[in-house]
């Protein structure tokens, strides 16, 4: 348990290579890493439960056994804690029966007291126990049923089932977000290590010992932390599940779209998982440079808003109008105005903001571009949030859009048309926003019915962040991709840049046109295309000192 300072050494792209012998063949692997990571670089997956790239090594599950050469000849060792040594010999289950038997044995031990819950277990389909069981082989059971299982559970949750078998704790309510099934727990202690080493608050612990050990909080205390839902991801079995997703979907039905969280300037890498045109959950996507494997509960629950209060049409003078009509009307208003104030936003992509910039440029002196946010900026929590709710703040700066929203408030009377996109100004600061009501025509592009659309004279529904393809620059100066998940509440909805293109008659047909416009304004983006950004983002040189 005190093994909480052995962080695994992960392979770096520029790491020195050493030669080791794996299953009789010499291969080159990064120096200094552990064998799990080293074998991964040459395409060999080592099954494991307790090992996690971003957590200290605990080495208790014993599933990742390989044979290595030591002073006493070839012997079993855990791959997650054996460092690569030049010239070492390694035998995996592909060449060693001993390894195969050891892994089968561990699998048998894991399942000896594990309930046969798979059909009702939310983890089924993405469960390490299932995967490793299928990989390990030996699928017949030697266990005598009349000896029974020893289900894990704290004394207060022990009960007898209809068979007369003593059972452990099922669906134990741990706190506001997480439910624990003590029987399913395989005591890998990943969650304990996460709460201690990453979250920094020890709220979970494995109590008692031997095969009656069980995971729990202090009796009567809750698991409550802004990052506590991460324990449901790292739980290799279905012991810890999130209340928000419990029983909603079977995971094998879900499709995945890789994107990022636009409501924090770190831009945590996430995957939106959807089925039947609806987003069901958000999972963290590993990016060692940005958010490691973690996302905050706020990010994780962001999907719930995607299907709530959506503005799927336009509205003009309090009456609903079809989108096309609303867009056309907006175009007339903007082009026919005396003076237009356009407000760009840091929660929109570079493409959207480039479109707004182009719109203002096209209107010549008639339009002025404003930006900024009244949202409160917090401080980084050191895990997966920078505390700044404006995701693309740096992108705006790169585009040369200054933060002068307060100036607009002061000069509101000069304008007769206001175009706001991606801002809920009235919700952030109704006091300041009140001045903007002096502008007679207020056009709002928003995915949601919100306080700002309520104040608009013309509102146009647009796609939300998870439904658009585009780019954002996070606070580290890393450009990252958003991808569109097929979860549109209405097929007619268009992204902001397209609506703006229609308003300003820019003639853009795809986000690439918009991106090219952004590229033209940002020298650091020269030569970087969407493919070059990749799933892990790309650090822009010289953007952040």
């Amino acid at each position, binding site marked *: 348990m005190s093994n909480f300072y052995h962080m695994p050494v992960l392979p770096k792209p520029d790491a020195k290579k050493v030669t080791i012998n794996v299953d009789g063949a010499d291969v080159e692997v990064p120096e200094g890493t552990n064998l799990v990571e080293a074998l991964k670089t040459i395409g060999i997956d080592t099954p494991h439960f307790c090992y996690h790239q971003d957590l200290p090594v605990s080495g208790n599950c014993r599933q990742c056994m390989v044979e290595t050469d030591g002073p006493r000849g070839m012997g079993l060792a855990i791959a997650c804690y054996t460092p690569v040594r030049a010239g070492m010999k390694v035998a995996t289950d592909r060449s060693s029966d001993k390894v195969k038997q050891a892994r089968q044995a561990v699998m048998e031990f894991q399942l000896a007291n594990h309930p046969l819950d798979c059909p009702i277990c939310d983890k089924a389909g993405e469960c390490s126990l299932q995967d490793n069981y299928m990989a390990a082989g030996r699928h017949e059971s030697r266990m005598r*049923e009349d*000896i029974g299982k020893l289900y894990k559970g704290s004394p207060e949750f022990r009960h007898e089932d209809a068979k007369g078998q003593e059972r452990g704790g099922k669906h134990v309510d741990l706190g506001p977000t997480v439910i624990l099934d003590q029987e399913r727990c395989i005591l890998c202690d990943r969650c304990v290590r996460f709460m201690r080493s990453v979250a920094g608050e020890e709220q979970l612990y494995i109590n008692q010992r031997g095969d009656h*050990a069980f995971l729990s909080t202090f009796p009567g205390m809750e698991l409550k932390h802004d990052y506590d839902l991460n324990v449901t991801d790292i739980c290799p079995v279905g012991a810890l599940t999130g209340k928000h997703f419990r029983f909603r979907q079977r995971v094998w039905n879900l499709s995945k779209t890789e994107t990022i969280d636009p409501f924090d300037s770190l831009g945590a890498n996430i995957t939106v998982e959807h089925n039947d045109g609806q987003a069901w959950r958000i999972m963290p996507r590993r990016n060692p440079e940005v958010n490691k494997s973690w996302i905050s509960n706020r990010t994780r629950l962001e999907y719930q808003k995607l299907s709530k209060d959506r503005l799927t049409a336009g509205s003009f003078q309090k009456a609903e109008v079809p989108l096309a009509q609303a867009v056309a009307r907006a175009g007339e208003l903007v082009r026919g105005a005396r003076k237009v104030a356009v407000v760009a936003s840091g929660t929109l992509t570079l493409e959207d903001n480039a479109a707004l910039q182009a719109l203002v440029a096209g209107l010549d002196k008639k339009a002025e571009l404003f930006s900024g946010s009244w949202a409160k900026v917090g401080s980084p929590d050191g895990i997966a949030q920078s505390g700044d709710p404006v995701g693309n703040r740096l992108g705006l700066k790169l585009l040369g859009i200054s933060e002068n929203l307060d100036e607009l408030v002061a000069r509101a009377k000069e304008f007769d048309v206001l175009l706001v996109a991606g801002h809920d100004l009235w919700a952030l600061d109704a006091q300041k926003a009140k001045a903007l009501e002096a502008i007679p025509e207020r056009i709002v592009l928003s995915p949601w019915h919100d306080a700002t659309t309520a104040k608009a004279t013309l509102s146009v529904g647009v796609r939300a962040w998870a439904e658009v393809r585009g780019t954002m620059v996070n606070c580290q100066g890393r450009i990252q991709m958003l991808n569109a998940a097929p979860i549109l509440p209405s097929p007619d909805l268009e992204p902001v840049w397209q609506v703006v293109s229609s308003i300003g008659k820019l003639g853009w047909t795809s986000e690439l046109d918009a991106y090219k416009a952004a590229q033209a304004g940002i020298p650091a983006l020269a030569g970087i295309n969407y493919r070059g950004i990749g799933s892990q983002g790309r650090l822009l040189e010289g953007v952040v000192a």
Partner: protein
Amino acid sequence: MTTLTVTQNFGKGAKDIAVYRKLGGYSTIGQKLFDLSQFEMIDLVQRSGLRGRGGAGFPTGMKWSFVPRGGKPVYLVVNADEGEPGTFKDHVLMQEDPHRLIEGMILCGWALGVRTAYIYVRGEFLPAIETLNAAIKQAYEAGFLGENIQGSGYSLDIYVHRGAGAYICGEETALINSLEGFKGQPRLKPPFPAVSGAWASPTCVNNVETLMALPWIFENGAEAYAAMGTPKSTGTKVFSVSGDVKRPGVYEVPLGTPLMELLESDKYCQGVVGKLKGVIPGGSSSPVLTVEEAAKATMDYEALAALKTMLGSGAVVVFNETRSVVGMLASLTRFYAHESCGQCTPCREGTGYADRILKTVVAGKGRDGDLENMLSLADNFSYTTICPLASADAGPIQNFIGKYRAEFDAVVARNPEHADERVTPAFRPGAFW
């Protein structure tokens, strides 16, 4: 007359420092010691050939030589968490001669540059802890502990740390975890405690008996100690003999003494009660010896290793023909299942499962194949875990069943349906379905 190096003060009331000093105690803490460098002190122990008396038998001097000097503070932790079934020598040693332990600790402390030392005593030994604390208090008052010991400029504090009932804390890294205020679960190695142990500092973990041998070695010289015992197992060893012998107790004999001499000699156990059936020579985790093997066994590390067993902590458990080995094994598997720390999967689930199988067998519900399953489980959980507890369970399972198979088969045969084909109870989904 056997030279006694550790137990010579038994029965003389050496708990009291006045008596202990009259018997020659604390004579080593003087100029002779203060003139020695740490290097020479370690060299002395290395030359004596003293090996750890806690179970593994690792050369003490070599262990000390791994401890880096001059960096972080070095800790000395005395392993008095004597929990191995059959072992009770440290318990008696601490009770009878606590000052010798303190003297040994000062010598070791000098050699390693220890400022603070802890004696980790298992929780059940409260009387021994009280004895130790009283002795430590006396030693402080006499100036053998505390700051500037006897004007040498060397300071040493000794504290007793009471354990709370976990056999696994006898494993040195688990003991360190327990000392640090964690659950007593063994740590991954490397780093070994000698390099990074308690509070990530170099830590030397030594058994009570090992340290108590130091004053004699220092006084009489390494060569005199090495002259006793066998060339590879030097010196004397304290054996705790229990079970079916006429006079169970703690006996110090030179290593290499024949087992039967220990059991039969009038000086020691005075013979076996009833007809000998077997002997566990080194604590519960060492493989059992049958009568024939016991007859030729000599008590040293190498001879017992040749018999595929081990000297361990020197706990000799003797049992006669009237005792059921099935019951004995059942009590051992229950013990290991109870004491598994729950960290590594094979040990956590395996020891418990083996125990449940054997319980079923003892209850008369054994089936053909159960013993094979147990052997296979034992094979699967030995040497696949962080610490050797699972292997310590596998040893007795494999040896008891291997050497007394007929007896186990007879117990299985008590179930009239033992040979029936396994019946799977009718499919009845669990209540949660």
